[in-house]
């Protein structure tokens, strides 16, 4: 055995040391590698900071811009008009209730006649739909000059046959007598494209209905009359308001035009300054010079508006007196219970409405056109505003509350659904499942994450929406609040899909949290003779609760920020959900913070107030996400079990 050393080969240590001596640009490679790794980590932080800076840069100007707009809104007198116009909208709501009461009352007499008429028309339509093709070719043939008589004959026969078979195949409602059914069938079979008059039986049905309707109208004459009077009561007042509104709008448009032209002039001049082509430069400069308009004298035009205050107040007073009188003569009797309660509601609401109108009119005197709009009221108008109205011909309002409410309700629904599912699944997988089951469950749940959200959105429109709607129509489920639902695109639908999307995040993190529970806890519990269930619920879950809570919070963050699904599925109604309908509110449509950005950002012109408002929404959304994530971390730290 030759055990002599091999001096020709240097020891490993010296090789390593030698390599350290080499330097690149004055740094040794180890430092460079360290910096490289460090820079990669800091890229994420830099990008985050850049995002924040970008959002703030675009969005922060919103407050002054919106302040300017609200200032114009006040100075041009639009606010003055809205003082009266806004409470006057209530009249429409009350009229609507009365109209419903009237129609419900009339229905008691005319419903059967109307149903018969409508059913007959529906049947006729069905026949026409089924025979659309022969009908159309016959119509075309008839229009040809000269008409081909033989061809037309053939077509007529075809149409007759098609109509006859279609009429035969119809299912006639029971309220048509046998003779009527036969006649309808005969008339439908004989339908031709050139007949302008309705078939005789249909005419009879129409006449029957109008007779019944007339009879009902005489029976409920006081109610019908009261409704008409109430609706007409607003007309003189509305006329005055409309005149003032037109004037205010004209002033505003002039003021806005002036501002636009002014900025355009600047823009054109800037473009001219950078333009190299002499001819183009000259034309741009010329255009800039032309783009001047006279500034509006707001004070003059506002005088015209406030000058009518007395007239307006007088009209409001007249209106209030008229509707109070109408409330007094509103008949106690209506056709149905529902109609009666509607009428009673209106009777109670009218004095309130009149008082509101008088109070509004009283504030007109104190209104000052030149009162400055403070920045705090602008902040309030954004964060607590209840109207999001854009692209309006009257005034754009950027109120944040309807969008926030929609987002929050949807997120709450999603979390309420996703939490039990994902936490229970995590407990099962972690504690009870066999290795084989784990191998199936975990990848499958994590696979959900790979489904693109736009695909889920389509599933929501085409499948979940119809499913919820169908289920809501089952008669034995009618005790559920909100059933039967009206809209298939609603917050519940969106919430379900978002819950589905949040499950993988929440499941994986909860499972990790349970995994992190120290082995010693479990062993100690086992040693004390606890059953498996006791160990799980008394030891493991409490020990892992911080992780589970932060998993739920991170799931919430995912849900709040999700866009595509809510845009497609939530129904996009920009209004604060009507919480007065109780828990059934979850079946109403809503709009969301993310959805509004996706829907409107593409079309607004850069730098406009609308554009900035959307960035403002983005900033708030960003802040919410940061807050949720920070909470998740705080929770995780707060309840961190002491590692045994």
């Amino acid at each position: 055995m030759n055990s002599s050393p091999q001096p020709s080969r240097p020891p490993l240590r010296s090789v390593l040391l030698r390599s350290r001596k080499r330097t690149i640009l004055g740094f040794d490679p180890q430092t460079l590698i360290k910096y490289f790794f460090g820079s990669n980590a800091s890229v994420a932080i830099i990008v985050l900071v850049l995002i924040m800076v970008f959002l703030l840069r675009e969005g922060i100007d919103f407050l002054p811009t919106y302040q300017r707009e609200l200032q114009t809104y006040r100075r041009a007198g639009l606010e003055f008009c809205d003082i009266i116009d806004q409470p006057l909208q209530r009249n429409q709501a009350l009229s609507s209730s009365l109209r419903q009461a009237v129609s419900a009352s009339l229905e008691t007499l005319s419903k059967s006649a109307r149903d018969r008429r409508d059913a007959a028309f529906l049947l006729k339509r069905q026949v026409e739909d089924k025979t659309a093709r022969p009908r159309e070719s016959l119509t075309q043939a008839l229009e040809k000059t000269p008409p081909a008589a033989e061809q037309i004959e053939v077509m007529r026969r075809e149409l007759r046959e098609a109509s006859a078979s279609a009429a035969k195949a119809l299912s006639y409602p029971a309220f048509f007598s046998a003779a009527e059914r036969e006649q309808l069938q005969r008339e439908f079979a004989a339908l031709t494209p050139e007949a302008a008059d309705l078939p005789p039986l249909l005419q009879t049905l129409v006449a029957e209905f109008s007779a019944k309707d007339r009879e009902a109208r005489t029976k409920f004459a006081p109610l019908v009359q009261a409704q008409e009077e109430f609706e007409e009561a607003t007309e003189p007042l509305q006329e005055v308001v409309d005149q003032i509104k037109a004037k205010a709008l004209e002033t505003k448009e002039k003021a806005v035009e002036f501002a636009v032209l002014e900025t355009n002039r600047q823009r054109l001049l800037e473009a001219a300054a950078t333009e190299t082509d002499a001819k183009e430069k000259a034309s741009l400069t010329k255009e800039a010079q032309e783009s001047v308009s006279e500034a509006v004298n707001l004070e003059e035009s506002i005088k015209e508006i406030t000058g009518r205050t007395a007239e307006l107040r007088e009209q409001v007073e007249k209106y209030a007196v008229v509707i109070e009188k109408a409330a007094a003569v509103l008949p106690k009797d209506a056709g149905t219970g529902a109609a009666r309660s509607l009428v009673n509601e209106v009777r109670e609401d009218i004095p309130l409405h009149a008082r509101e109108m008088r109070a509004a009119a009283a504030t007109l005197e104190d209104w000052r056109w030149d009162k400055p709009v403070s920045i705090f009221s602008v902040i309030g108008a954004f964060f607590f505003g209840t109207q999001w109205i854009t692209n309006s011909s009257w005034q754009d309002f950027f109120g944040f509350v309807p969008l926030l409410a929609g987002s929050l309700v949807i997120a709450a629904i999603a979390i309420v659904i996703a939490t039990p599912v994902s936490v229970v699944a995590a407990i099962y997988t972690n504690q009870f499942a066999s290795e084989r089951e784990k191998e199936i469950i975990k990848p499958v749940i994590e696979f959900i994450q790979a489904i693109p959200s736009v695909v889920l959105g389509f599933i929501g429109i085409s499948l979940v929406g119809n499913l919820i709607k169908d289920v809501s129509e089952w008669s034995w489920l009618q005790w559920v609040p909100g059933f039967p639902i009206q809209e298939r695109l609603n917050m519940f639908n969106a919430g379900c899909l978002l819950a589905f999307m949040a499950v993988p995040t929440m499941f994986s993190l909860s499972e990790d949290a349970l995994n992190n529970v120290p082995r010693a806890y479990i062993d100690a519990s086992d040693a004390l003779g606890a059953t498996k269930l006791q160990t799980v619920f008394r030891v493991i879950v409490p020990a892992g609760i911080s992780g589970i809570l932060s998993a739920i919070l991170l799931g919430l963050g995912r849900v709040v920020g999700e866009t595509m699904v809510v845009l497609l599925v939530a129904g996009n109604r920009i209004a604060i959900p009507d919480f007065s309908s109780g828990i059934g509110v979850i079946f109403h449509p809503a709009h969301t913070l993310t959805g509004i950005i996706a829907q409107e950002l593409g079309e607004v012109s850069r730098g406009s107030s609308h554009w900035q408002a959307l960035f403002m929404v983005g900033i708030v959304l960003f802040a919410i996400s940061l807050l949720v994530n920070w909470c998740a971390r705080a929770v995780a730290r707060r309840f961190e079990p002491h590692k045994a």
Partner: protein
Amino acid sequence: MKIAFLSLVTTFAAALSLQAQTTLRIRGSDTLGAKLVPQLAETFKKQGGKVSFDIAAEGSSTAFTNLASGTAEIGMSSRKVKADERTLCRSKGVSLTEFEVAWDMITVVVNKNNPVSDLSKKQLLQIFAGDIKDWSEVGGTPGPISLYTRNTSSGTYKDFIGLAMKGREYGKNSQKMAGNEQIAAEVGSNPNGIGYVGYAYSGAKGIKIVSIAGSSPNPAAVKSYPLSRPTFLYTNGEPTGTTKAFIDFCLSSAGDAIVSKAGFVPLSIAK
């Protein structure tokens, strides 16, 4: 040397513009861009136009933002250009040229099973402004009205305010849908739904047309229908090359045939 450099630059620019001319980028209105313009483009290509089309339709406003930033050769709009949009384009060195291509009729649709088949102008206004909330108020089967409108980027959204609503706002209960197809789908599936679509979409499944004050949308009487409006194509300056060829094709009689097939009213009939 300088001349050589300049000529190189111009050749390069010419090559670039040639490159750009072979693809026509068309942006703007969903009403025009979903059916009509793609069909026109298809036929234009078949006729031997060596050109490829890139069409995106997300609302009329996008026509002008794209034209201004130079990311489109042709803009489609279902309304006239607004003054501020024109100046925005102008400040970027883009002067808009307008071409009326066809007339469209905004068609009010309800669910097929809704007995209501005619609405007065006032009723229409009140329904879309949210004053009328229940079908029983206009003689229908009692039930709350579900209101579907286009979203705010749509030219139809704004046109409808002008044509039917005397400048009033849509009711708070309105739901803003992304396109004509979605409105048709929702109205078709909701017995209490009402909405409006371009005439070309009024044949969709499950919906029926409501006449307005007795007047139904009818190509032969487009001017007398209260909700009809012209639609436009916009280009940067006087069109040249392929853009011109395509616009000329749209306005030719062959184009007219496609226009009426797509459910719009060609100018020859509207005039």
